[in-house]
């Protein structure tokens, strides 16, 4: 799978450099795509040569045919909103979820601040008269069925937790929205950013910094192990994710004693303020942690939570910011924000 995606990305880069257009209202296939179709490896596209309407995708709720280019788009997950805003002009989004409007969790809060809030109530969703509704894997099948019953087109897709999957998300959603050209260009932008970071990391020899990600809620401490968003970000930044190394998966609860046992060089706190600073203060003043390298050397940092808690390409920004924290030579580097369609 990874090799297929790598090949796909190579094709994307070639395609993008040719500057070809992949859009159209007929079933004609652009010349560049015909020889090397970058959508061929995108999971979920039924006929990658079809760039006209109607078009069909095979997603979590089965095969869904999209009759025409969606103009009124509504998604019910933050990750989907972030990908959507990266692909289509903002005015095509008709409403967003509550979390999308929250600065601490969302990377598109400013763009969506004037939009109405949508809940997962089918009646409320229907009231916005959307052409298409994108729901995540976590949405109930009943919601999909209710919306289908009132004639609303629903596409249920999974947001991937790994970098190659995120590029797939961008291309698939670009295809769904009829924005293949923008999706390709944006996939190239994201891939180049990722490549830049991974090349820097490859050039680092010697011992990798040992990092742990922590959040605290109601006296419980959660970390991020294998197959977690934060864990992937830490590894992308070139560090060892200690929770993953300890055999932990996803986001389990751990004790302070486990933090001592893992002995991190750096602790990333990925929760919003003010609780992040309060938690860091607790860690710094806790006598038990005094000998932990991250505490001893004052290397506990608040990570921007909106880069860590979402499931979208914005996680790459989290990896870039983490790299700035753990690699002294990147300390003053200014990474740009991602582009948005005009």
């Amino acid at each position, binding site marked *: 799978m990874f090799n297929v995606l790598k090949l796909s990305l190579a094709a994307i880069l070639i395609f993008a450099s040719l500057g070809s257009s992949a859009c159209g209202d007929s079933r004609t296939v652009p010349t560049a795509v015909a020889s090397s179709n970058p959508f061929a490896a995108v999971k979920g596209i039924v006929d990658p040569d079809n760039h006209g309407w109607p078009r069909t995708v095979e997603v979590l709720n089965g095969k869904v045919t999209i009759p025409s280019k969606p103009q009124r788009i509504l998604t019910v997950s933050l990750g989907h909103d972030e990908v959507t805003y990266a692909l289509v002009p903002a005015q095509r989004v008709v409403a967003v979820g509550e979390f999308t409007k929250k600065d601490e969790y969302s990377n598109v809060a400013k763009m969506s601040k004037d939009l109405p809030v949508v809940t997962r109530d089918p009646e409320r969703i229907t009231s916005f008269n959307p052409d298409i509704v994108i729901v995540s894997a976590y949405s109930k099948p009943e919601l999909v069925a209710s919306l289908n019953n009132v004639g609303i087109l629903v596409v249920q897709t999974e947001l991937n937790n790994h970098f190659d999957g995120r590029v797939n998300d961008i291309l698939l959603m670009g295809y769904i929205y009829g924005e293949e050209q923008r999706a390709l260009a944006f996939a190239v932008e994201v891939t180049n950013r990722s490549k830049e970071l991974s090349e820097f990391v490859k050039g680092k020899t010697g011992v990798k910094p040992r990092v742990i990600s922590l959040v605290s809620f*109601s006296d419980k401490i959660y970390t991020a192990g294998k197959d977690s968003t934060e864990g992937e970000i830490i590894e992308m930044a070139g560090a060892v994710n200690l929770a993953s190394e300890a055999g932990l998966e996803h986001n389990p609860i751990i004790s*302070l004693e486990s933090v001592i046992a893992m002995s991190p060089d750096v602790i990333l706190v990925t929760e919003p303020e003010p609780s992040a600073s309060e938690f860091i203060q607790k860690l710094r003043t806790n006598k*038990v942690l005094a000998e932990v390298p991250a505490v001893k050397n004052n290397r506990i940092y608040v990570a921007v939570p909106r880069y860590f808690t979402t499931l979208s390409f914005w996680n790459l920004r989290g990896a870039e910011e983490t790299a700035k924290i753990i690699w002294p030579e990147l300390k003053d580097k200014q990474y740009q924000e991602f582009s948005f369609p005009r």
Partner: protein
Amino acid sequence: MSIVSLLKISKHTSLVSRLALALSLLIAALMIAVIIAVSLGPVSIPFSATVSVILSHLGIPTGVDVGVTDRRIIDYIRLPRIIVAGMVGLALALSGATMQALFRNPMADPGIIGVSAGGAAGAVLSIALGFSGNFYLAQPLLGFAGSMGAAFLVYFLSIIGGRFSMSTLLLVGIAVSSFLGAIISTVLIIVPDTNSLREIVFWLAGGLDSRTWEHVQISAPFILTGSTLLMLMSRELNLLMIGDDEARSMGISLNIVRPILLVLASLITGVAVSVSGTIAFVGLIVPHIIRLVVGPDHRILMPVSALGGAVFMILADTLARIIIEPAEFSVGIITSLIGAPFFLFLLIANKRNTGSF
């Protein structure tokens, strides 16, 4: 000869001897449980160091050199957690033993008659209304108020025509628990602050992770006072078990004794729930197991249940700490995994004996 056989033989000996024997064994079990619990954890600490730290707290110097970090881990992470676990187990077991005598029902426990749900509702409201952030005693106090409110509601609704009804009690308990569960769900839906919502959700998951000396300070005065008073009322519990008329004939004023027992049981349950979340079945299974061994006399049953509950919770929490180390498992799941089959066993045994549930 097994410990159980020893205790069963000792049923023929005097009350004081049986109590002394049972307490001696349970105190020894408690000490072993504490040493096991203190010894195990993600950081490997030499056993000699563990024993040395414990003995030093008891004023017995050992001369063993213990590292600063190891000592801090034991003193500030493991010991407070173990003490909270012990107190929660003690409170729930005593509360269960009290409820079973009070309602003359072997299946009564703080959870089944709504006391735990009341404590949880009180604690959840204290978070949702922002009280717990401003006043550190708000959560245990509201937990206590919720427990007591639920207990009294169930109790008074179970009195039909001036007489207390067992079957009504269980049905009312189920209804009150469901109602309080609905209140908690409503709070989860309408609470406007995301941080409070998260706090409630994570609190409801229960558990003893990250318990500190503050939790010990908050809960110890209430639980130890309430538990001592309950144990002092063991004679009254014995008389209540025989029957209302017999209790009255022995000079017990049911209108005074029952509410006092309810208040005390609710107090210790509410406070325990407020520092640990809802932990099921401890109040049900511990008194039962103890009763099977030492008999139904509450003068022995109560103190032994208290110690048994503490030992059970400390061991269950130790299991929760190490079973998927370095991650934490939920102690509530462990107690339920043991307690639910035991509860079913009791139901079936009861059916065999009485012909009905």
